[in-house]
């Protein structure tokens, strides 16, 4: 271990190359978003002012700062559409994450109780859909949820409904799409902790006369809490900003915030407004993201 330090030049390269890449393509772009969210829309290329003109020296810098304004944020406050869009996104993400937990936990638990060999197969089966395109999986649901699609065929054939209900362009369809797409993200971290669960603890509790539901509540669930936290964060954060799922399955009445950013950008070509919406979204997600990072950074060190 000590000799790694002798490797100063190599060490420098190993750290600096990815570091520089992430600074340039992840951090700096964020600062630019922040800057443009304070700019004003203009009919020009690029469609915003002020543009930082470094060639103009100090005067350019001064002109740049005096040109910044909070107008875009005031716009967000004045138009209730934005506020409702944020609320809807957080609401959908919260309910969807809860559903994912309720559906994912029994699956993860059941997988963890099978033999080693089966666990490997089942985990692979769970991950596989995640690697096939989200777009394709959502498109598959567009097929299924059509008015005269297979789901309604089955429901009518089983006489569960008399009239085929409309699924597409409803919030129900968004929930179905989200739960379907994010299920692997919930099952995997839960399985990772449940797999390590020491079964002798459960046996001990059972031997001492604890009923099964109480064993679950007092032993299993608390011991898997780190998996629950990881799964919840891994689902909740991206769902809030989801674009493809609500765009293809949801209705057009009230967009989720990811769609709002997309529309401001591609539809209205209002880059500063899109940036302001994005900045507020990041602020909204900052707490769960920091929680997630702590969790993720601790994970490899624990093992």
């Amino acid at each position: 271990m000590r000799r790694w330090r002798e490797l100063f030049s190599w060490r420098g390269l190993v750290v600096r190359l990815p570091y520089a890449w992430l600074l340039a393509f992840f951090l700096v772009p964020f600062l630019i978003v922040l800057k443009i969210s304070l700019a004003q829309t203009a009919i020009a290329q690029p469609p915003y002012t002020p543009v930082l003109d470094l060639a103009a020296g100090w005067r350019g810098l001064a002109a740049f700062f005096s040109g910044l304004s909070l107008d875009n944020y005031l716009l967000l406050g004045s138009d209730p559409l934005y506020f409702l869009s944020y609320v809807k996104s957080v609401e959908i993400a919260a309910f969807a994450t809860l559903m994912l937990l309720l559906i994912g936990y029994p699956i993860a638990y059941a997988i963890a109780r099978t033999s080693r060999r089966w666990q490997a197969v089942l985990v692979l089966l769970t991950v596989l859909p995640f690697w096939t395109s989200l777009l394709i999986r959502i498109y598959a649901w567009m097929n299924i949820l059509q008015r005269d699609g297979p789901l309604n065929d089955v429901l009518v054939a089983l006489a569960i409904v008399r009239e085929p209900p409309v699924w597409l362009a409803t919030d129900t369809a968004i929930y179905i799409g989200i739960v379907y797409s994010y299920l692997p993200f919930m099952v995997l971290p839960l399985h990772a902790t449940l797999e390590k669960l020491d079964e002798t603890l459960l046996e001990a509790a059972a031997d001492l006369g604890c009923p099964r539901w109480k064993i679950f509540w007092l032993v299993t669930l608390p011991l898997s809490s780190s998996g629950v936290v990881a799964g919840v964060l891994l689902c909740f954060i991206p769902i809030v900003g989801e674009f493809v799922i609500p765009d293809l399955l949801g209705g057009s009445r009230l967009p989720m915030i990811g769609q709002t950013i997309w529309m401001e950008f591609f539809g209205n070509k209002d880059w500063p407004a899109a940036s302001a919406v994005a900045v507020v979204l990041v602020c909204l997600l900052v707490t769960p993201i920091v929680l997630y990072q702590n969790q993720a950074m601790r994970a490899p060190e624990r093992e």
Partner: protein
Amino acid sequence: MRKVSTFNLLAIVLGVAFLYLPIAVLVIYSFNASRLVSVWGGWSTRWYAELINDAPLVESALVSLRLAFVAASAATILGTLAALALVRFGRFRGRLLFAAMIYAPLVMPEVITGLSLLLLFVAVAVDRGFWTVAAAHTTMAMCFVTVIVQSRLVDFDVSLEEAAMDLGASPLRTFLSVTLPLILPAIAAAWMLAFALSLDDLVLASFTTGPGATTLPIRIYSEVRLGVKPEMNAVCTIMVGVVGVAVVAASLFGKLGATRGTPGPLG
């Protein structure tokens, strides 16, 4: 040794069915002879035949494949270096920010990453096209690569490296003849997964692309927005097939490495 209760079995069966039925429906419908998706017109491969004549579609598929190759390769190099830095270098200056930048893109909503990268490319006045999308995909995929390689690095015995260095191997030699062979299966798996990620991405590509670099997901998206089309069922089935084979291959690679690479009790 473990018996599976009915409840557990039910959970697994329903879970797997839920995950795979929609894809199965898609595959079956892609062989439907009827243009109307709701009417079953018998088995046919006509939609596959029509795809080959769809020149723009074939072209965007080629763009996507080239893009995925470039982005996966770059992401694998950068991600592996990042994993080495995080696992082997202890505490270096700026490690916290570094780790934060590795983990944040994994959960960051793609619309935000896409928007911010686009604004970067506009600010530095680069022409948008193939290379800007490649840079975007590299950034996203390298974080996944880092996490995969990192877990492999954490798993294996550091004393192997120390032994090599104690016997006089230079750090570079140690890396090439001890570390690299041990983590190679993870690197191969990571490359394939990065490839799949790039091949699938819609949002980042939409923001960062320019003329002449329409990827397959962008093409598919613009088609399916307006509704279900049988040709698209066929395209999607092909993509599912390609990605499925790649991921199964990747996991077999990983498995191979896990049995071969892990030192026994005697190290």
